[in-house]
């Protein structure tokens, strides 16, 4: 059953289209991320669900009820703000009690639920502290407790972890997952950081210039990106240009820098859109490539080049290889040095082929 349903939602600010015709559903108990570069409209979608913005057109339903026009204080959703927005003049307990008081929850039940919440977020005994006496991580926990204590249908996160250092952020990501599993509340998390989104969410909604580019699990977005944009945004990708030279039904042949390679048509999201002699974008993941100085296997695509950088990564190396198609990054083992002449081997089934990307039409 879907807890949030967005239908053809569009939001314009003057001449600027912040969100155009977005549709998606979030199931009860899901942990979904909205991912996109800054200015892609992700916070606007969040603020429309919270009730701070009204869509120009389209429908938003929370738990089956149409909420367009319902003010934020009458919606059963709660938000964790980017700035956290803890009330600096109230104690931790008073911050958490704020929403309960508005609902008219009695004093005794309030203090019970505050203590319960503080133990969920592992801040037992912090009741009488003031927000400015807490560390960044502790403030995050209070902000989260203040939202989930109201038992909302969904908790909205507006990049609250962005200000934390990497180690604390990763710790808080695991905490978010634990708390979500414990409470069973639906989480919708907005971020520009693909690492966070990949780590925490069941599903991701990838936005580009106000439009939904792809919705799916981390694996779907990583393995089967629908566009060069998705391939570049999720994980690392090497991009080269190629021409389609022949099509054989379930395979087609492309020309990459003069070498012909035959790839299965499943590597293209829309094989029908590829025309013979047309230009295509080809992208391949650094960890699916290998560096070699031996004769390549038959049928593999090889691109010759020179190692220009090598970065030690513990269990493997990252090589940057200068080729006539541009720099290519490879994660592989091997004892190659800067200056060595090598070849990058690409397995045909590991590439992604896209029709030529259309440039972004509007800029925010």
């Amino acid at each position: 059953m879907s807890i949030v349903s967005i239908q053809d939602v569009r939001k314009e600010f003057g001449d600027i289209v912040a969100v155009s015709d977005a549709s998606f559903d979030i199931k009860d108990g899901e942990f979904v991320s909205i991912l996109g570069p800054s200015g892609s409209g992700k916070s606007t979608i969040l603020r429309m669900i919270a009730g701070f913005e009204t869509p120009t057109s389209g429908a938003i339903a929370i738990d089956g009820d149409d909420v367009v026009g319902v003010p934020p204080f009458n919606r059963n959703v709660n938000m964790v703000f980017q700035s956290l927005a803890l009330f600096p003049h109230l104690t931790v307990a008073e911050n958490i009690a704020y929403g309960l008081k508005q609902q008219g929850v009695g004093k005794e039940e309030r203090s019970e639920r505050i203590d319960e919440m503080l133990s969920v977020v592992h801040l037992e005994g912090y009741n009488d502290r003031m927000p400015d006496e807490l560390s960044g991580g502790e403030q995050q926990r209070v902000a989260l407790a203040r939202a989930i204590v109201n038992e909302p249908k969904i908790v909205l996160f507006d990049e609250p972890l962005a200000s934390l250092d990497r180690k604390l952020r990763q710790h808080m990501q695991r905490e978010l997952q634990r708390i979500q599993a414990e409470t069973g509340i639906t989480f919708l998390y907005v971020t520009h950081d693909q690492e966070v989104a990949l780590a925490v969410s069941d599903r991701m909604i990838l936005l580009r210039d106000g439009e939904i580019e792809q919705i799916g699990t981390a694996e779907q977005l990583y393995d089967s990106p629908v566009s060069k944009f998705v391939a570049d945004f999720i994980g690392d990708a090497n991009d080269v240009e190629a021409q389609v030279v022949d099509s054989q039904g379930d395979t087609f042949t492309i020309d990459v820098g003069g070498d012909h390679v035959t790839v299965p048509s499943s590597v293209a999201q829309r094989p029908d859109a590829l025309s013979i002699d047309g230009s295509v974008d080809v992208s391949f993941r650094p960890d699916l490539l290998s560096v070699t100085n031996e004769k390549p296997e038959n049928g593999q695509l090889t691109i010759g080049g020179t190692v220009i950088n090598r970065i030690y990564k513990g269990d493997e190396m990252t090589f940057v290889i200068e080729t006539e198609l541009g720099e290519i990054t490879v994660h592989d083992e091997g004892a190659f040095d800067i200056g060595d002449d090598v070849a990058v081997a690409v397995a045909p089934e590991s590439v992604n082929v896209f029709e030529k990307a259309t440039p972004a039409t509007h800029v925010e």
Partner: protein
Amino acid sequence: MSNNERAVGRVSSSFRKASDTLRDRPRLRLAAIVGIPVAFLAFFFIGPLLVMLWFSFQSGMPPAPTTLDNYIQIISSDLYFGIIWRTTVITVQTTLLATVLGYTLAYSIVRFSRRATLLLVLIILPFWTNYIIRMYAWINILQSGGVLDTIMMATPLYSEPLSLLYSQTAVLIGFTYIWLPLGTLPFYASLTNMDTDLIDAAKDLGAGPLKAFATVTLPMTMNGIVVGIILVAIPTFGSFITPALLGGTDNVMIGMTIESQFMEAFNWPFGAALSVIVSFMVVVALLVALLSGTDLFDKPEESQ
């Protein structure tokens, strides 16, 4: 090396010596930094206050015997108690009007306007015109048959002139007009410093606009409110030009009485005693405001 350069070298080396000396002696450093302003305040502020205090215990123009008569006369007379009471009432009314209007003005500028700077300049602009000239403009507006009466009688609402001049209303209008900038700027400062996410958070947690204002905006801006009240109340309490020009003889305030003791009755000791009492009241009020102000700011709500 020219003489000039040598002189510069000497000065800079003695500077360096002085700063080395100061670095090792924090007390001396503190004295060097605050010494000049403290000396200035002592000579031009505390000194005259002490002279006034001394004057208030004189029985006549000095040299004269020391006496408590001036204070006894003030305390035993209903006249001065009445004037101080009226002054207090007008001060409270003015402060209330100027802070409520000022807060509303500051709030609308901060929240609803895109031309905040222009509006702030417009609010401050009247300060550039002389106080007395502005008061005379108000006389022109408020007097019987003046601008206000002419406008009001052109409407079907009024057939009689209002004749507001020389009334307590006129004094209140004058004060509110004069002090409105002082009652707006501290609120503007504290409102712009406030993170608007806090209001969104309050609404998100179920508080309607009024509830969010009362539980978040108001306590968050309490410091600015206290500053605004102090800035308006203190000059109003001691003011003598506005009530003299707009209030006439029925709205005498304590500042006018003090002024006439010095300038007309030439009874300096008595004027000094009145001044001491006014200063004492202001200091007490200020302490109360500051104490309650910090109190309100630290715990605006009973903890539960």
